């Protein structure tokens, strides 16, 4: 009994002496081994970004965010800009495979062109992260829009406006970009998955605009001449659909034709929602994609797995923007990301 009391007293004394000692040491804190490893794993690594082209909202937005993280964590980040040329992109990818960086972030011009090179790169130990436009080859990671889902959402919105007894007619026009891009092939699949369930909807025109707004304008102009009672239109990209919207506006049919388009959610696109050019703008949210990209880059650079061993896909959530929610949270500017 006595010894127990002694023991308790001793413990109390020990605590009184030791805790402040530990606290004294604590003024300089404890090293977090995970943080140290995180930083040392990442610093000095090399990441290359191969976009379709620099100079447009999506790629500039992602690049701004990726560069910010690279600067913070001390790995090198460089951009190879093929300026919309698939040939130049292929050459850039080949030379990157030779240089063997730790990771290449690839933005595919279509589902086929880079497929074999991406496999080759992984075979050489270079990890591949694809962004927003997929290739047929699944690689270490894909982050971006689910084009099938965008197509379904767009078609659902149009069906809601133009199905039996709702709009001035059941006629819908679709304008696509370049027929071989992931954004076209998968989105069309999504659109027709929905439209096939609604046989009353009649697709009166499906034309490729090559992402050219003036071409989109003249197509919509012609379509409206043929089908003055057109009810809805699905466009594949906000950058070209300013043309589609202008044709509708010039024909004085803004209240009649329901126009859905999609894009990265740049303030320029949102502006066209608030001025009534786009009725619905499906945004794949570039700032969010940039954050996910950065997390994936850090994960892949730290991972001991060999290139091509583990494959991951993440389709990021979409934001449906209409007049009611055009706000700074949904609509970003490049300067804000830098």
């Amino acid at each position: 009994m006595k010894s127990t009391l002694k023991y308790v007293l001793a413990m109390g004394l020990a605590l009184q002496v030791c805790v402040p000692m530990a606290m004294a040491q604590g003024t300089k804190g404890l090293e977090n081994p995970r943080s140290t490893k995180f930083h040392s794993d990442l610093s000095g690594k090399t990441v290359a970004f191969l976009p379709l082209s620099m100079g447009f909202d999506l790629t500039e937005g992602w690049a701004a965010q990726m560069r910010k993280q690279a600067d913070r964590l001390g790995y090198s980040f460089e951009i190879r800009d093929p300026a919309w040329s698939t040939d130049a992109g292929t050459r850039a990818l080949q030379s990157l495979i030779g240089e063997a960086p730790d990771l290449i972030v690839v933005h595919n011009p279509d589902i086929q062109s880079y497929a074999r090179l991406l496999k080759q790169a992984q075979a050489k130990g270079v990890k591949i992260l694809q962004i927003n436009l997929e290739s047929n080859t699944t690689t270490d990671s894909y982050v971006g829009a689910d084009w099938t889902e965008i197509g379904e959402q767009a078609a659902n919105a149009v069906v809601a406006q133009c199905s039996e007894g709702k709009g001035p007619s059941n006629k819908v026009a679709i304008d696509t970009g370049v027929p071989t891009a992931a954004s076209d092939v998968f989105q069309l699949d999504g659109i027709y998955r929905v439209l096939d369930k609604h046989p009353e909807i009649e697709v009166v025109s499906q034309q490729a605009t090559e992402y050219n707004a003036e071409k989109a304008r003249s197509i919509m102009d012609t379509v409206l001449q043929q089908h003055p009672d057109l009810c809805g239109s699905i466009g594949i990209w906000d950058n070209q659909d300013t043309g589609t919207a202008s044709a509708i506006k010039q024909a004085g049919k803004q209240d009649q034709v329901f126009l859905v388009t999609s894009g990265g959610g740049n303030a320029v696109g949102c502006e066209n929602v608030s001025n009534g050019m786009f009725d619905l703008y499906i945004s794949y949210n570039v700032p969010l994609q940039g954050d996910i990209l950065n997390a994936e880059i850090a994960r892949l650079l730290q991972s001991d797995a060999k290139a091509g061993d583990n494959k991951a896909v993440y389709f990021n959530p979409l934001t449906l923007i209409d007049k009611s929610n055009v706000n700074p949270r949904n609509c970003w500017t490049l300067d804000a990301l830098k």
Partner: protein
Amino acid sequence: MNWSLGKMLKTQEGVVLALTAGTLVLFAIFLPSFLTAGNLISLVRSMSILGLLSLAMAMVVISRGVDISVIATMVVSVSWVLVLQRNGVPLGATLLLGGLLAALVGALIGAVIAYGEIPPIFATLAAGSVVYGAGRTWLFKLEMQNVPPDSSFFTAIGNSQIFGIPVIIVVFAGFCILVHLFLTRTRLGWALYAMGNNPAAARNSGFAIRPLTVGLYTASSLIAFVAGLLIAASTNSINARLYNSTMIYDILLIVVLGGIGLNGGHGRVRNVLLGAALVGILLNGMTILNVNFTTQNLVKGVVLLSAIVIDAILNPRDEQTSQQGDL
């Protein structure tokens, strides 16, 4: 001039005219809504911007030059106008600055060709990427520039009509008349034909070929600037990516299809109109028919190829063409 149908059909112009008329009749018969006033206006309007750029190209080609840089000049100068407007510069000043930029670029290109004696195709090809690169680096960051929402100027051009005809068509028609008068009624216009036919002889006869070349490329750039303004008014935006598109080939297609030989010295405004009409009718008809993208390109290619082949059969190479060569 003594026009007979047989003679007419033996020129490329005649062949293209026959093709155009044939397509027009076919579409008019088989597409019920093709020959309506609304559709015809939409057809002409859709070709007005390409047509305007083709006018600029035609003048240069007649003088035995070629201007590959028009698209770059157009997108850079007009994107800059929109950026300046967003930054609060008054409309008049932005237009003036944009026009000055286009004129300066044109004059520099012309000077390189005239005084540096660099072949136009290389000079303008290189100048195009310099202009585009400089523009992207210093004048605007994003390829896509929207017209400022409160700009009544662009809205007026894009949406208004004069006697039921869109302003854009009226502007194109105005330029057609201007260029036509310039080419047929002025000494400078005749000088272009002289330069195209035989530059050495033109110089020996006392034409100031070098200043003329500088002026010509300046004019071509200014027309490109106007075309860019029309695009901005028409689609509420301009996308600098047009520089990387096939637009320049469409312009050359119209010029060559219309019968303006790339070896210079020949051609009128009516050739541009003819080329534009054929391309416009084909595109409009195929859009109505909802023909897919690949087939449309195929048809465009086949039409151009057949026009060239028929021309080659009707007008075999002779001593002059084989010496001078085509471009």
